[in-house]
């Protein structure tokens, strides 16, 4: 990404974004106080939401839902309409931001075709997980974040157990588990200032939609099988108390020719909160070929690997082979400007999902207020909170860097850079450091020793073996 691209991006605010976010904020405030009996201000905010959606296919359903709120007769479908309305608004913000990013960089992106979405498998009649989720989410909405007590915060525990037992419902299970932990940590909350209003409304709305159609987004989605060479750029790690996901951003060169494409391969494991730092890689050890490519900086050859329409590979380690060593910066230099970006699945369109791989070099860094990079006069904050404890990349190494592969992200009106790999100095010598360098175990002997001594995964697995199956 050149300085001119970044300057253009930072100078452009897509039309309507701030107005749309104001409507979302109005709904979020109403949700924080509970939808049961909205006062005049919040009723007006909800009317605003209905107004914004009027004239769209959702318009009638949202209007009806807002009316039902004022008469106090809420049903499942009403909450789904409200969650859908909020999701559509943020989806539009997402699209506007991605368009401006693609335009600034001159990136080509696939368009989404409706046929790419598999038909939804029918929900079994006694789906306790989905029904339990809807009931709990409904209670949360009626109560509002400010009214959530300890019992309501942990009210979904049994539902989550049912969802976790069904691989098709993993997305909803992991989402509810994350939300539950946060509610338990912050509730009861005394004031709305103490509540992450936007974030919890995000999680709530997504959960409501998933709870109505959860199986559609599981492993049964329609896939095409692809073969060719994968060149990893870096790994984005996500983690909450009971889940970790390593999302590997790659450039894919199809074996049958065609332009290089940006794809992701994702590995997820269930965990507990005491398993943190480099230990999380042990939970993903079933995928040695992919982890080996990260740790050893190798390309991969994939054969008949399923690819979903949103650019996600459904990873099968046995359909991949390790290739030659490749410098991720060579990959970025060669391909990032012209690789075709995938379309984003409609439900996933939310600004939080924006994670576009970029390559920058020739910048200066400034650590006076957080860390920022200055690229030809354009200033971009570096999101140091997104440097994972499972890898060697630290704020100091980023501050000393001269080139960076990272993900562009957007939150609350601001673009930022999440580093995945840097060219930097280690002990005054030039070095490349990446978040995935420790995928096969820490290469720093001191870190490795501590990890070995704690041995959290082995200790807990041994207990689980003895107590759960004993």
């Amino acid at each position: 990404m050149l300085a001119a691209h970044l300057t253009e991006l930072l100078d452009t605010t897509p039309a309507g974004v701030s107005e749309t976010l104001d409507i979302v904020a109005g709904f979020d405030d109403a949700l924080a106080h509970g939808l049961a009996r909205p006062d005049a201000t919040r009723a007006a905010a909800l009317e605003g939401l209905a107004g914004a959606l009027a004239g769209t296919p959702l318009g009638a359903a949202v209007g009806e839902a807002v009316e039902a709120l004022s008469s106090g007769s809420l049903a499942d479908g009403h909450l789904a309409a409200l969650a859908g309305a909020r999701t559509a608004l943020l989806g539009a913000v997402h699209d506007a931001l991605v368009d401006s990013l693609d335009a600034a960089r001159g990136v080509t992106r696939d368009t989404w075709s409706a046929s790419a979405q598999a038909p939804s498998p029918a929900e079994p009649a006694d789906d306790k997980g989905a029904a339990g989720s809807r009931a709990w989410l409904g209670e949360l909405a009626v109560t509002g974040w400010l009214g959530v007590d300890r019992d309501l915060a942990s009210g979904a525990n049994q539902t989550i157990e049912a969802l976790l037992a069904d691989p098709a419902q993993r997305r909803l299970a992991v989402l509810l588990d994350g939300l539950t932990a946060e509610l338990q940590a912050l509730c009861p909350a005394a004031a709305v200032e103490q509540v992450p209003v936007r974030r919890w409304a995000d999680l709530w709305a997504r959960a409501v939609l998933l709870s109505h159609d959860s199986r559609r987004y599981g492993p049964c989605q329609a896939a095409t099988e692809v073969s060719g060479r994968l060149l990893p750029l870096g790994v984005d790690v996500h983690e909450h108390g009971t889940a970790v996901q390593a999302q590997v951003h790659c450039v894919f060169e199809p074996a049958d020719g065609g332009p290089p494409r940006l794809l992701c391969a994702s590995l997820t494991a269930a965990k507990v909160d005491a398993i943190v730092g480099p230990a999380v890689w042990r939970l993903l050890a079933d995928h040695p070929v992919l982890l080996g490519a990260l740790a050893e900086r190798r390309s991969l050859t994939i054969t008949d690997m399923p690819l979903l329409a949103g650019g996600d590979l459904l990873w099968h380690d046995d359909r991949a082979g390790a290739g030659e060593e490749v410098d991720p910066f060579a990959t970025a230099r060669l391909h990032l400007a012209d690789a075709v970006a995938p379309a984003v699945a409609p439900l996933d369109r939310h600004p939080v999902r924006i994670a576009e791989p970029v390559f920058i070099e020739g910048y200066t860094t400034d650590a006076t207020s957080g860390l920022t990079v200055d690229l030809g006069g354009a200033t971009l904050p570096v999101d140091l909170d997104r440097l994972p404890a499972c890898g060697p990349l630290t704020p100091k190494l980023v501050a000393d860097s001269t080139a960076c592969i990272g993900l562009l992200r957007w939150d609350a009106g601001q673009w930022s850079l999440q580093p995945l790999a840097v060219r930097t100095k280690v002990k005054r010598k030039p070095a490349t450091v990446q978040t995935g360098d420790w995928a096969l175990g820490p290469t720093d002997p001191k870190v490795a020793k501590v990890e070995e001594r704690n041995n959290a995964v082995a200790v807990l697995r041994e207990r689980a073996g003895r107590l759960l199956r004993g």
Partner: protein
Amino acid sequence: MEGDAVDTERADFGQRSGVNVVPPARARKLAKVPFVELADGRLQGVVSSGSDTARVYVSSITAGSHALNCGTNNNRPCGGLSQGGACKHLDSLVNEAVLQYGAQRVADYLQAPAHLREADDAERSAEAALRACLEGKPESTPPGVVFGRFLRYLSYLEVPGTTTALPEMHWFPATGADR
């Protein structure tokens, strides 16, 4: 100036999707105290017996009242606790909770005596305040609930992994490289 910065940060907290709400736990050795949590209004956990590898103690301190409880998972009270004052299992529980969550978070949760806590030495004074929580009165609660929570905790290690992307995890970035 400083006040303004704090205000902006707070306003931002409500408007941001990606804020970190639950700080990640810190790594610790799990062999002695395999399970610690702040939940159900208690600091509670499971402590391995020093003498018998097959036996575990279920220990807890209630927030606010600082009622102490310790006994084996098959309901036998801990001898150390009945002699008055906290037993070594409760000591270990508090020590490991401090390692995992930091003293301040544990002291906040337990509502440790505020007069023992000092703003300019927050972590150390929180630890001192936690020692005061260990002087509470013993109170018998059935160990089944906490032990059940431990089994549920362990069951996560048996949930199979997946390679289906979970887009919702973008709300939960891994963090903590600067620790």
